[in-house]
């Protein structure tokens, strides 16, 4: 598989409070990759490292097959980027902002930019400081798309936008993907939105990657089980991993397990051990994400206590 973004053991530290430790990422070319993590997990830091705004203290970063930050100028010509906070001169008009950006990119497609203006319903003569958050968001997306990027990096692109604008913006991005096969790396905490179109998901917490899998695989493997007579069954030694266990309370012997790596045949395995599997409930991406994060944090705090 060819990868649009590769991180190998990337390390970056900000004092004692926060660090990225040996981060390894593989973003397949042509994928729509959702980068999930709670606030402060290191999502934006990871993106700043990709964009060469910060230099890693250790490890290698390759973007579109080239080493970053060494080949940065060449790479950036083929990358569209929507930062978490817009960085536009507020005194410029939409048209002027477009002209400024066009002059920095030799891949700039002026015709496509004009088409996007119309499609996103932006007025060329409008001053940026008079624009709403939604309009600014649309302009940022226009500037990123008009370079006809091979890789589009979006940092919380729809955060704080109303649903109608969010829809317009994402439809435009997906339309571009259908036409070009570009890779999209999108960081967000709006998990439900990502679930619609991401085919890969990476989860980060406290500067470390927790998992990186195709979305379907992630969803298939995480289940909530309702079990009878499971009290004596030990948590280790199962072929799946137990993320959470809500034990039976009082006389009811019904336990709830949240498991990762679940497969159909595991049911028979549990029943052989005398457990009755009452129900296997599918979790959506958000529930799965929350459960996974919870269990990793509990595990880490246990290790810290040792």
């Amino acid at each position, binding site marked *: 598989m060819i990868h649009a973004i590769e991180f190998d053991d990337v390390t970056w530290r900000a004092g004692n409070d926060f660090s990225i430790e040996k981060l390894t990422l593989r973003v397949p070319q042509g994928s729509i990759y959702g980068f999930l993590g709670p606030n402060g997990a290191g999502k934006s830091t990871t993106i700043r490292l990709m964009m060469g705004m910060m230099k890693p203290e250790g490890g290698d970063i390759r973007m579109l097959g080239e080493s970053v930050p060494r080949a940065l100028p060449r790479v950036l010509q083929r990358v569209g980027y929507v930062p978490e906070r817009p960085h536009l001169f507020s005194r410029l008009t939409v048209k002027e902002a477009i002209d400024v950006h066009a002059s920095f990119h030799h891949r700039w497609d002026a015709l496509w930019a004009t088409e996007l203006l119309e499609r996103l319903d932006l007025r060329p003569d409008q001053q940026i400081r008079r624009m709403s958050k939604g309009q600014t968001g649309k302009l940022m997306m226009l500037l990123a798309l008009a370079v006809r990027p091979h890789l589009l990096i979006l940092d919380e692109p729809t955060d704080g936008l109303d649903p109608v604008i969010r829809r317009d913006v994402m439809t435009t991005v*997906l339309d571009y993907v259908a036409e070009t096969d570009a890779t999209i790396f999108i960081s967000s905490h709006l998990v439900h939105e990502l679930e619609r179109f991401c085919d890969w998901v990476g989860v980060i917490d406290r500067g470390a990657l927790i998992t990186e899998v195709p979305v379907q695989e992630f969803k298939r493997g995480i289940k909530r089980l309702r079990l009878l007579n499971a009290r004596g069954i030990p948590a280790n030694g199962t072929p799946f991993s137990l993320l959470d266990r809500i034990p039976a309370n009082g006389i009811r012997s019904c336990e709830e397990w949240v498991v990762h790596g679940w497969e159909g045949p595991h049911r028979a395995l549990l029943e052989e051990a005398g457990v009755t599997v009452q129900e296997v409930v599918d979790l959506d991406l958000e529930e799965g994400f929350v459960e996974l994060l919870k269990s990793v944090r509990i595990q880490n705090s246990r290790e810290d206590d040792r």
Partner: protein
Amino acid sequence: MFDGIDPRSPTPLYEQIASRVRVAVASGQVSAGEALPSVRSLAGELRVNPATVVQAYRELAADGFVEKRHGQGTFIRDLPVMKREEERRRRAIEIARSALAEGARLGLSGEELLDAVANEVRAHEGASTEVPS
């Protein structure tokens, strides 16, 4: 045809999309020779990954429901009556299974469900043949 596609469902989106087309064919909602929306427009409309739509259409083509005409798009094939009947039977079985599963969760037996279905069918027929006074 594609209303209510649910990204949170455990059924993969491409399967949901393919299934909507099969139902539309089985119920006569679309007929042979009709074009499906282009990958690009359907992905935009549903806000899903274009690759998901491609996969759904590929699946439908493999089953013989649609055909891809080069440079023109994807079209509903002329399904023999038998295949349509087969799809209708498959749907009926699916509905029955999910009703049984739901019933089992509530502790209802197959008998009880059958009775209920028979009653509903009778009531429904009664209602539709009733002559307004």
